[in-house]
């Protein structure tokens, strides 16, 4: 379940048209504490983010989708737990 949510993160990054660097700056702005390499590892499932870290990345992507006219397509950790 969480595995598919993380795959969504990388697909979301590509769909949102963000580079890894651009996504990291958005994550950093929202108060994220992980390094760029760790964030990249979250996207590629090399590291499992905490639910909080996952949701910061997800929200960084969703804010980009809202700017593009979308509406929060990336699921949050709590959504994945709810099923």
């Amino acid at each position: 379940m969480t595995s598919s949510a993380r795959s969504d993160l990388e697909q979301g990054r590509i769909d949102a048209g963000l580079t890894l660097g651009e996504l990291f700056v958005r994550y950093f702005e929202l108060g994220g504490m992980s390094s760029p390499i760790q964030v990249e590892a979250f996207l590629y499932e090399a590291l499992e983010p905490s639910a909080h870290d996952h949701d910061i990345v997800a929200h960084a992507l969703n804010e980009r989708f809202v700017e593009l006219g979308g509406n929060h397509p990336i699921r949050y950790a709590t959504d994945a737990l709810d099923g």
Partner: protein
Amino acid sequence: MNDASPLSHFGIGVTFEDADVVVAAIGEVDIVTATDLGDIVNAVIDGGHSSVVLDLSRCTSLDASGLAVISTGAHRLRLLPLGGTLTLRSPSALVVRILAITGLDQVVTIDEQMAPTTQLGREQSTGGMAAGNGFDAEMGERPLREAHSPDTEAHSLREVTAIAADHDVVDGALRLVVALARATVEGADGVSVSLERHGSLATVAASDQTILDMDADQYATGEGPCVDASIKGRWFHVESLDDETRWPAFVPKARTLGINAILSNPLLVGERPVGALNIYSNTPSAFEVKDERLAALFATEASTILADSGATVSDGHLASRLVGALRSREVISQAQGILMERDGVSADGAFTYFLECSRGSNRSIRDLAEELVAFARGPERADSETIWTRDD
């Protein structure tokens, strides 16, 4: 009011001007003296004064600890029920620039009542510490003639960039990283950035004189974690110098300065090591795994600044990027603090609450955080459509 030799003494004067309380900092504001200054500013605010002037016209240097006093005082005043203001009188040009980069210019008023030419002249005459020690020492003779306004920030930064060498802007940004690392990493008693310049290592940003001396000892002996991180591109966590055998010439000098634990992370441009971010503590085993992570994060930020600088410093892109990112972090952190205090939730809980509000309203968390901070300062100042009105 005390008068003081700018190098060896520090004094604080408090006077009243109409409704303003003027706190004058005389001499160097550093990690030692900033505590006294902060106590006075807090006492003035606790005494019910909402309009406070911090007079820097006789301040010879101001380091990260001084910035923390400004930030804390300004935020406390803004959160008073009827609002309050912190005015900085006659800060030097470099202090104004650092305020802009950190976003603190959004929460203070700048009063150029006295042209800082005399201040700069005195800075030059104090000699010795022009590079790296504090934010206040190297800007040269350029008095600011008009108050700094957020609307003119980009213009002002470009103006400053045009006058200073490009590397000066980069150094300013690196000092910001040092200040943030110093304030964020628990157990850190000092932070520095070493960079390879003209074929040898030099300290371009340091939190205090002891740290400058620490770095200088490593350059002189040609050994130490800072030198090895800079040359080999590897990171070092020295938990305690008590058991350290790798750097026999350097370790005794470090111990003389009271240092006992060190984190050095390489700064990499491309894959090439160009310097190091060094975090020092007086306490053995002061750094934990979370501190290692934070140190790596700040080293990455410093590396990004260096990598970006060649192409983008001249158009102000670097400064804008830092201003935006740090301002967002700060306002979101403030808003989280307000929710934690108001509703008794954890930091993560406060973030989740913002996330849900953002999702429900299609507004960014930064927007919502700015609105909550404005609301906390005084409901009448917030948008009439605010969502932050309490139900109870």
